[in-house]
């Protein structure tokens, strides 16, 4: 299934925040987690995750730290901040409104 670019872009923020809310992570692992959660339906161009992460960092929703990875190479780890959790909660409410609204109209379409 091909998602529209806008929808992928819009869902990136809550998705990244939600994954980081599960625990600290880094770019490659976040991409893998997204693929896993969506059953491979939500395909990102890998590189595009990083501008999203940097934007979130700049807005103070996530904090980042370089530290050594298990392979010995330096890796940038991201952690969700308190601001980020608040943002996640807000986004969650917004998405729920969208979800409920769409469900409502689609249910009607089914029963009609």
């Amino acid at each position, binding site marked *: 299934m091909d998602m529209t670019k806008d929808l992928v872009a819009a869902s990136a923020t809550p998705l990244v925040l939600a994954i980081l809310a599960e625990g600290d992570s*880094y*770019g*490659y692992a976040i*991409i893998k987690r997204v693929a896993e959660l969506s059953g491979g339906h939500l395909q990102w*161009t*890998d*590189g*595009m995750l*990083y*501008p*999203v992460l*940097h*934007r979130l*960092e*700049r*807005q*103070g929703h996530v*904090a*980042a730290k*370089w530290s050594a*990875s298990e*392979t*010995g*190479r*330096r*890796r*940038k780890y991201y952690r969700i*901040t308190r601001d980020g959790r608040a943002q996640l909660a807000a986004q969650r409410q917004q998405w729920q409104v969208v979800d409920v609204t769409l469900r409502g109209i689609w249910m009607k379409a089914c029963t009609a």
Partner: protein
Amino acid sequence: MHGVTAFADRPLEDQIAQWRAYVRRRPALHGPDAEELEGHLRDQLTALTEAGLAGDEAFLVAVKRMGSLDALSREFARAHSERLWKQLVMAPDAADESAGTSYTETLVVIGLAVAAALAIKAPALFGFPINPDEELQAFYFRNFSLFVLPLLTVYFIWKRGSGVASALWLALPFAAGAVFANVYAFHTPSDTEKLTALHLPIALWLAVGAAYVRSRWFAGGGRMDFVRFSGELAIYYVLIALGGGVLIGFTAMMFASIGMNAAWFIFGWLLPCGAMGAVIIGAWLVEAKQSVIENMAPVLTRLFTPLFTVLLLAFLATMAWTGSPINVHREVLIGFDLLLVLVVGLVLYAASARDPQAPPDFFDGLQLLLVVSALVVDGVALAAIAARISEFGFTPNRVAALGENLILLVNLAWSAWLYLSFLRRRGSFGALERWQIAYLPVYSVWASLVVVLFPPVFGYR
């Protein structure tokens, strides 16, 4: 650094090195970003080779998944708009901009500069001559910003390709400025008239800013770019003024040597026309030649932040040691206002040049020290002034100066708090940046109040 997980596959390492060099050529992608992306590529390659792909196959797949570098560096530039300032990667047509359009721009700029130079001479036709033997009429002081700032705004409207509708909206503040600068019947001499002359440019600068950022006022670091633009323009203007001073000196000396007095030309034409035209030329230089002396303001900030911190601390120490109180007279309040303006400027330009994601360093501590010592010095000065203000009574100058002091004090106090939480790693530097740019309209609103309300409130004194 990369040796630890280097792939045994030699050609693969070569391909990665090539890819890395290619990424590094992108100005929007800084060193750490390239490293982060390379780390991702390597993780991906490891997974793919473990799944059984050969090195070169894995490389192709991993690079394809990474996505187009063009699109990627555009996204990076969006996320880090301060880099944009230097690279202008956001203007995709900037690279293939033909010589023809920049030729047009030169013509437009020269046209606007000449228009500004002529505008300042136009009132002479209606009985307001600029005469070197007489003092400049108050009319010019009240209106000088109205000769050039509308033209500067026109330049940005043209440059950003804003529509007619937004041009009309932008004309409104200038029209209002012209009305309020000229409709009041000021006494002579009048303090409120001088306040209007000082505050009108500050109020109108916001309109220039609106034209500069176009629709990016609330997004994409537009306002921070405008702050950078303002600082660089000030520097260019000073440089042009220095050159102009040399030109004036030679004009006077050479014509004097053949027994001619060139004062009428120098003070009647060269100085006023040059001062107006230089604003447009300076703005164009900042826009066009950003790389020549790019980020001069931040360099000066780095240089002067420690020096001013030392000055303020030395002042406080001396005052504490000798116990001599601040001698409150006319200029003191204005002087301390200017000090706060300077400190806000230092903070603003330090913030504009800083990578918001870098961890706190020594310089941030120094900034905090500067802000706190400025607050203490200003607090002492304010206490001294407040103690005697009842004696003085309220004059327009004093109310304006006190209002400005308060505005700057609020800005700095909150900045100090944000700096502190940033240094204690409780907050991000972005918060400080956001606070500073969110505060920008406050200055213009206050300046507008001074222009619009002060003359009638204080009876045009």
